């Protein structure tokens, strides 16, 4: 079975995601050696209807570390690149601690 892709949103244009959560998640993701995508700010990309969102939305099973799942789903939709309801899991860095996010992203393969 193919491992889900990982997408990390840095939410750089607002301070709504705790800085320590972002740093912890990003640090452990990069240390894992697994391939992943990181973007500066999904909201900003959605506002520009950035064509790069198509590549991110169209990749099969995906785990997204960002904010509230409802917001992420409709951000992609509003930009014209809806994500599938199946196989996409959104992990909310605004509310969950870094440990929970990282284990959700990396599962058993965490290093």
């Amino acid at each position, binding site marked *: 079975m193919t491992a889900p892709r990982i997408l990390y949103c*840095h*939410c750089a244009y607002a301070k709504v995601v705790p800085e320590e959560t972002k740093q912890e998640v*990003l*640090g452990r993701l990069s240390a894992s050696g697994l*391939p992943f995508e990181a973007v*500066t700010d999904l909201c900003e990309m959605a506002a520009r209807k950035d064509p*790069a969102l198509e590549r991110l939305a169209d990749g099969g099973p995906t785990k997204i570390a960002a904010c*509230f799942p*409802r917001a992420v789903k409709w951000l992609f939709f509003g930009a014209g690149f809806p994500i599938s309801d199946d196989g996409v899991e959104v992990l909310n860095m605004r509310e969950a601690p870094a440990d929970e996010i990282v284990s959700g992203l990396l599962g058993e393969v965490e290093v």
Partner: protein
Amino acid sequence: MSAHRLDGTRIRVVLHDGDADTSQRLETLTALLEDGHSVTCAAAPPDPSDDVVLARFDESTATIRARVEQKIGRVDPEPSPFWKPWFPVIDYDRCTNCMQCLTFCLFDVYGVKEEKIDVQNESNCKTDCPACSRVCPEAAIMFPKYKKGPINGDVVRPEDVQSEAMKVDISTLLGGDLYAALRTRSDEARKRFSTERDESKALLERKRCLKKLKKQLDIPDEVLMTLPSAGDIEERARRAREKAKRRGERSQSVKDKKPTTEDDWGI
């Protein structure tokens, strides 16, 4: 540093290989993301392409930045003005297409696409103003960078949907029985509306409401100062209705023209 080329296209940095320790990896990643670049961490370098800059994890951030600047084609002479990406995001599972947001928003953020409400001018939205989400009777409008739920995208609870209470607040804010005025748009009603009001009392009432609403609804001064008058709202509602009517007529006209017999098809 600006994250895009002069033509507006963006580049992506692909980081691969290299023996960098965890802290160096994190520093490089954070720097590139703060610069506004998308980053792919890959096990192996992809094929080169026009929108990709390849770099190794063990290269210094300065070296990678220089390569990015070279790819972008300029050293940013005039940094782009900072724009906090603040705009409404519609939850179409909840939206009933009532168009209240379109009617309420003064800044033409909303439009209609294929007969559905649509966010069309994101950058017109007033930063930190969630006012349209508060007039939405279904709590279908989100601002993902807002601090509180459900506007930030958190789950909508039954108590979050308080459309009638909100209508009363907005009506008071505008200094009169706005929704009644919208329902009875006859000349007589307009005349009564204008003559029965005590202007100084209305102004005081409006100021009091503005202060209260600013606190309750978290609406910035800039937006409160430019809120529409009852007349403005009425005019916008009229334009929206006309637009919808024209659209309906066009749609009907297309249906009427649709061939129904073989003769109609020219067979």
